[in-house]
């Protein structure tokens, strides 16, 4: 039996505002418990919400970036349920009329094909607090610092057909919100969270299977694992003649499995109704145009520009525009090295990325700045150092030993380009290796490489390889 997987994702992106969506409390992460929960966030009697304009701007910015319609009039509703991390007993959200309507996002698949994923809607809402389950004499502790942090809930259509597609979509969305500077994208701190609606159906059938909603998947890796686990679980059930239950399941990253959530077992009746403390949100054309003016170059546009302007391959351009910071870094390197776009691309994607990976650093944390890397590349181009020596120079720079020029100077890595000096070394090598010389001259051409190697070895790799080649050819004849 062949099964098809159907996946839709709900992403909660915390908007990078300074203050909360309905209060003037700070949204900074990591404060001592409840020190950033003001009267409004605590739901004290008599308090009232006032909407943060910046949160609205960010939602609109997102909407424009996915080509969605911005609702001229949207409504905040109360979603009523009791939970200790929900101080008012309701969450202010948007229900029937969200601020961002239907949009779409294009993802690249592994085979190089692209696929369009529909985005049903995106709406503004407030985040809840946190329940800490460390044991306080059998009690849980509630921290409401996060309560009231603005969230953009981005709901996709059930357009994804594999865990890999889901990951590609999620990564693309992640890059987009960071490009737009509306979310810091920090998954560990919960700034970018994902729930997945997963179902399976027989290949060729139209009707969707019963879905399970998987919560708490807070890394790209977990998304893939959780979905794959869930798909297998559902197929096992169906092939065993059973039926999938519609339910909320929690992903347990330690066990690598999903399990039913007891707290959500009960069928919820959220009793949505328009929040009488908040009038409709109206967004006029002027507001939208104002936001449009702040839109940065989007990933797909940037990628296209990298291909045409820098002559990069689709793959390279894709890698270099995966994040806004990566693109910015790359362009700064190109500028600093005098426009050698391909060389810059090779280095950013090669040595630099490897070093970042090894040290588990973000590109923004790179010890070698774009300007410093650019300068070093210039030294390759002007023949001060060879590409091979450059790797040593880069490593020294990475370790904080100074700029390219300083390292070259200090370590004496400057390429030897003095013809006389090189010739002297060649003469010595020829004198030291009479046997090889004779063999070469009697037709064993392959030995040419041996002589290059010996010369390079004798110069500590510093001789200009092109010069060495030319001079050797002449001398060996």
């Amino acid at each position, binding site marked *: 039996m062949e099964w098809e997987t159907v996946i839709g994702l709900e992403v909660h992106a915390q908007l990078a505002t300074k*203050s909360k969506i309905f209060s*003037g409390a700070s949204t900074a992460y990591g404060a001592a418990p*409840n020190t950033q929960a003001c009267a409004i966030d605590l739901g004290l009697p008599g308090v009232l919400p006032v*909407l943060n304009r910046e949160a609205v701007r960010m939602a609109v910015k997102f909407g424009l970036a996915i080509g969605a319609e911005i609702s001229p009039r949207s409504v905040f509703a109360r979603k009523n349920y009791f939970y200790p991390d929900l101080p008012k007993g309701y969450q202010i959200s948007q229900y029937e009329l969200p601020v961002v309507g239907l949009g779409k996002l294009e993802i690249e698949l592994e085979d190089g094909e692209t696929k369009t994923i529909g985005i049903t809607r995106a709406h503004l809402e407030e985040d809840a607090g946190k329940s800490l389950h460390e044991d306080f004499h059998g009690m849980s502790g509630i921290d409401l610092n996060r309560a009231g942090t603005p969230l953009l809930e981005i709901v996709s259509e059930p357009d994804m057909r594999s865990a890999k597609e889901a990951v590609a979509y999620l990564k693309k969305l992640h890059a987009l919100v960071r490009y737009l500077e509306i979310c810091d994208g920090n998954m560990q701190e919960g700034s970018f969270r994902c729930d997945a609606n997963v179902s399976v159906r027989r290949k060729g059938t139209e009707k969707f299977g019963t879905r399970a909603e998987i919560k708490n998947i807070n890394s790209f890796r977990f998304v893939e694992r959780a979905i794959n686990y869930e798909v297998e679980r559902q197929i096992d059930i169906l092939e065993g003649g059973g039926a999938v239950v519609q339910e909320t399941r929690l992903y347990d990253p330690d066990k690598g499995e999903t399990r039913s959530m007891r707290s959500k077992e009960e069928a919820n009746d959220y009793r949505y109704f328009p929040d009488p403390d908040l*009038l409709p949100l109206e967004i006029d054309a002027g507001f939208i145009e104002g936001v449009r003016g702040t839109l940065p170059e989007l990933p797909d546009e940037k990628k296209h520009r990298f291909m045409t302007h820098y002559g990069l391959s689709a793959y390279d351009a894709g890698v270099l525009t995966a994040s806004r910071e990566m693109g910015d870094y790359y362009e700064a390197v190109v500028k600093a090295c005098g426009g050698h776009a391909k060389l810059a691309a090779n280095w950013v994607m090669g040595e630099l990325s490897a070093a970042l990976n090894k040290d588990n650093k973000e590109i923004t944390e790179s010890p070698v700045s774009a300007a410093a890397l650019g300068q070093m590349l210039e030294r390759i181009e002007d023949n001060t150092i060879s590409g091979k020596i450059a790797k040593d120079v880069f490593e020294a720079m990475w370790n904080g030993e100074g700029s390219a020029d300083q390292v070259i100077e200090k370590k004496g890595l400057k390429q030897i380009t003095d013809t006389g000096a090189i010739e002297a070394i060649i003469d010595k090598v020829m004198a030291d290796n009479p046997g090889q010389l004779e063999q070469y001259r009697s037709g064993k051409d392959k030995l040419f490489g041996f002589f290059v190697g010996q010369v390079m070895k004798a110069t500590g790799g510093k001789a200009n390889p092109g010069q060495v080649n030319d001079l050797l050819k002449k001398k060996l004849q």
Partner: protein
Amino acid sequence: MSLSHDDVRKIAHLARLAVSDADVDAYARSLSSILDFVEQMEAVKTDHVAPMAHPQDTAQRLRDDVVSEADQRERFQSIAPAVEAGLYLVPKVIE
């Protein structure tokens, strides 16, 4: 609309209100009479009437993104029933 005892228990649960068995019947009767009363609304046809959620027919005002609230945890928690280490305590939350 006549509410059964089960209806009352269901509503009370949804609203997180403990209602003793002794009181269920009284609630069933009073809630039913209130619902009967409000059902007078059915007498008017409202098919083409736009619902009015609020007396004000304007848009909401927005505020600037400014941090204006200082930490008042001590003050706020001085009126809390149970706190420890800056956290509000509740019986264990099971997920």
